């Protein structure tokens, strides 16, 4: 069997003290080695496993032939965010799961190959890139303006697909930087922000008109935009509202939602305070409640900010954690502690209103619940005090009503997210939606998948309207 391409990581010392990207990705020779391991199966099960419909077999073949430009062009036919997806997609559940070599436990490392192609292109100077503009005359429906609300993964993907179809696409973002969760949520050491910036530059180079600091629903309403000639809308504003634990002491100083903690650190760059002005206050002993990717981003940030002891506190066991295995392993390597089968009951205060500990109770696993995971059952009398001075709550989010409460006639589902049909169309015929504001907290790639489907539906809608 051919030898695998090898991935290196930066040193553990650097990982614990800096926000540098942990994984170095493939070198050129390792990428070629890996690409040449691909069997090029006729059925290409890898492509069927890709939610963004990337022609995986084709781009791997091009890397094997050292045609990197060809490879990245092939990926970008379907995915405007290859540098992002190559890093944060759970490939082990998608393209790599369906790879025929996975049967022997060694699938092609498709994510790292996608990242290699994307990074290769970003290193080339702009003028070497192929000209993407076309000057074909516009059809009637292409003259319509489309508003894409939210410049996260869903919004960017939808805007890119629509602008490629020749539409006049405006992308509105509430924050001062584009990227959504890619910039406020996912830390630099997993996804360097210059990658997001450059992929956003690419989307703008396709012709998308970008409007930062614009809160649709507040700065202007959907109705206001309709009166300015916008004929279709895509809402991809993310899930938004942080959930808390609903236990006493949750508003004490030293309790953060994961969103607040990560936004301070990542978007506002509090890890470089006081060079950047936004502060973060972190204690010596940090406990992060939750077991998803966000919880792991929080523990690994807390460690890098100088906390002496950082734990994941999770109510089930490692097997039930929703986080990617790769993230769990990274955290273990970096010395993160795991408090499993533990649930919080009350945050304790010192005489200054700061956190001085958390009363927790031990759990055991019972019967499976509706999610199929075994339900945590508290063990009576097993309470103990977890010795921590900073609490980060990473137990998910719920629907942010800021925009959706300002739109008349928009039906919501029972969780408060936007209800859509199989074509991503909402109860308001000119409004389409995708990503976490439809599905609740999910992955970057599932948001992209819905956004691409919505882009197709918007095209059909506008064609039938013209």
């Amino acid at each position, binding site marked *: 069997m051919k030898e695998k391409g090898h991935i290196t990581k930066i040193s553990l010392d650097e990982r614990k003290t800096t926000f540098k990207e942990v994984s170095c990705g493939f070198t050129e020779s390792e990428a070629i080695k890996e690409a040449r391991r691909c069997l090029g199966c006729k059925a290409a099960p890898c492509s069927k496993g890709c939610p963004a419909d990337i022609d995986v077999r084709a781009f791997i073949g091009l890397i094997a032939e050292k045609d990197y430009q060809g490879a990245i062009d092939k990926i970008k036919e379907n995915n405007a965010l290859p540098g992002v997806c190559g890093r944060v997609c759970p490939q082990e559940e998608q393209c790599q799961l369906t790879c025929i070599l996975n049967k022997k436990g060694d699938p092609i490392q498709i994510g790292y190959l996608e990242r290699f192609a994307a990074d290769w292109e970003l290193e080339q100077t702009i003028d070497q890139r192929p000209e993407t503009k076309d000057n074909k005359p516009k059809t009637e429906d292409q003259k319509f303006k489309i508003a894409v609300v939210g410049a996260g993964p869903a919004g960017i993907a939808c805007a890119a697909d629509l602008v490629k179809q020749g539409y006049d696409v405006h992308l509105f973002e509430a924050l*001062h930087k584009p990227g959504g969760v890619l910039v406020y949520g996912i830390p630099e050491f997993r996804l360097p922000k210059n990658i997001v910036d450059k992929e956003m530059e690419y989307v703008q180079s396709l012709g998308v008109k970008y409007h930062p600091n614009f*809160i649709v629903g507040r700065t*202007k309403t959907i109705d206001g935009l309709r009166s300015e000639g916008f004929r279709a809308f895509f809402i991809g504003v993310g899930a938004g509202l942080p959930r808390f634990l609903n236990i006493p002491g949750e508003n004490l100083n030293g309790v953060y939602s994961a969103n607040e903690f990560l936004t301070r650190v990542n978007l506002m760059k509090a890890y470089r305070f006081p060079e950047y*002005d936004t502060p973060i206050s972190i204690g010596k002993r940090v406990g992060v409640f939750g077991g998803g990717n966000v919880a792991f981003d929080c523990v690994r940030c807390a460690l890098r900010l100088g906390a002496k002891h950082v734990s994941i506190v999770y109510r089930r066991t490692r097997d039930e954690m929703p986080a990617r295995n790769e993230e769990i392993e990274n955290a273990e390597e970096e010395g993160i502690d795991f408090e499993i089968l533990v649930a919080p009951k009350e945050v304790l205060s010192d005489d200054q*209103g700061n956190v001085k500990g958390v009363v927790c109770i031990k759990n055991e696993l019972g019967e499976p619940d509706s999610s199929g995971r075994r339900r945590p059952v508290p063990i009576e009398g097993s309470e103990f005090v977890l010795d921590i001075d900073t609490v980060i709550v990473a137990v998910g989010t719920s629907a942010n009503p800021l925009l959706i409460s300002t739109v008349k006639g928009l039906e919501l589902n029972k969780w408060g997210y936007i209800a859509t049909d199989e074509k991503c169309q909402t109860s308001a015929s000119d409004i389409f939606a995708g990503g976490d504001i439809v599905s609740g907290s999910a992955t970057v790639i599932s948001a992209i998948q819905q956004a691409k489907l919505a882009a197709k539906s918007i095209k059909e809608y506008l064609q039938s309207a013209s």
Partner: protein
Amino acid sequence: MKIVYKKVLSDTKEARIVELRFESSTIASSVEPGQFILLMASACGERVPLTVVDSDPKKGILTIIFQEIGYSTKLLGSLETGDLLYSVVGPLGHATPIENYGKILIVGGGVGIAEILPIVRAFKEGGNHITTILGAKTKDHMILQDEIGQYSDELILTTDDGGLGEKGFVSGPLAKILEKDSDFGLVYCVGPVPMMKVVSNVTKPYNIKTIVCLNAIMLDGTGMCGSCRLTEDGKIKFCCVDGPDFDGHLVDFDELMQRQKRFLKEEAQALRKLHECKLKAQIKE
């Protein structure tokens, strides 16, 4: 977002109060009384929430007034006419519902007096009879008494040292007024949190609806982070999307005051690094 006007309203040795006007046409045409913006002075800056004190939709100009109390407000105060702001987003928060309550009392303290101006004007236009009480530390700390006075049927000033108006805090004249006549439909109050707490305590026995305008520590301002959470009637609320107006009789002021201290240590650290020349270099960047 170019600054078109700057005026120092109060220049005492503790902290200046500064008025800035800047271009922001979209917000100027949609903002309503009580709403705020989030502003970044530089690319490295904090997102600072500030109430819109005035707006000129025709010229596309917004007015803000702030006290140079911390690092970011000092940075903002160092900007001059012609300088550019890095980012401005809004309008945020719910506008204050303007109704005809008959007689209302409006109470402002410190730099919070600035936030009174759009409110008193709107309530006056809404047909209310307005008694306004403004409190400041000294005569030199008092701002906007003429502007606010023109919309008030009665204006009472207080200073801690008695150098202007009555000596003492706003709660003094407030209590006296209510003892004589408690027939007010609303008390609206903006100022330091301890002042809003005291005012709410004074009005509570009379059961007069009391709105306080709160300014908790914010980050994104769109409900995403929960930094500005506070407790009203035992429930968690977010100042940015549920407020900024809250029921003064139901807010947990002690918790709010505690949470305002979250970053005191870091704030002191930021102030230490503050040097005028560095600021200027940063802004020009």
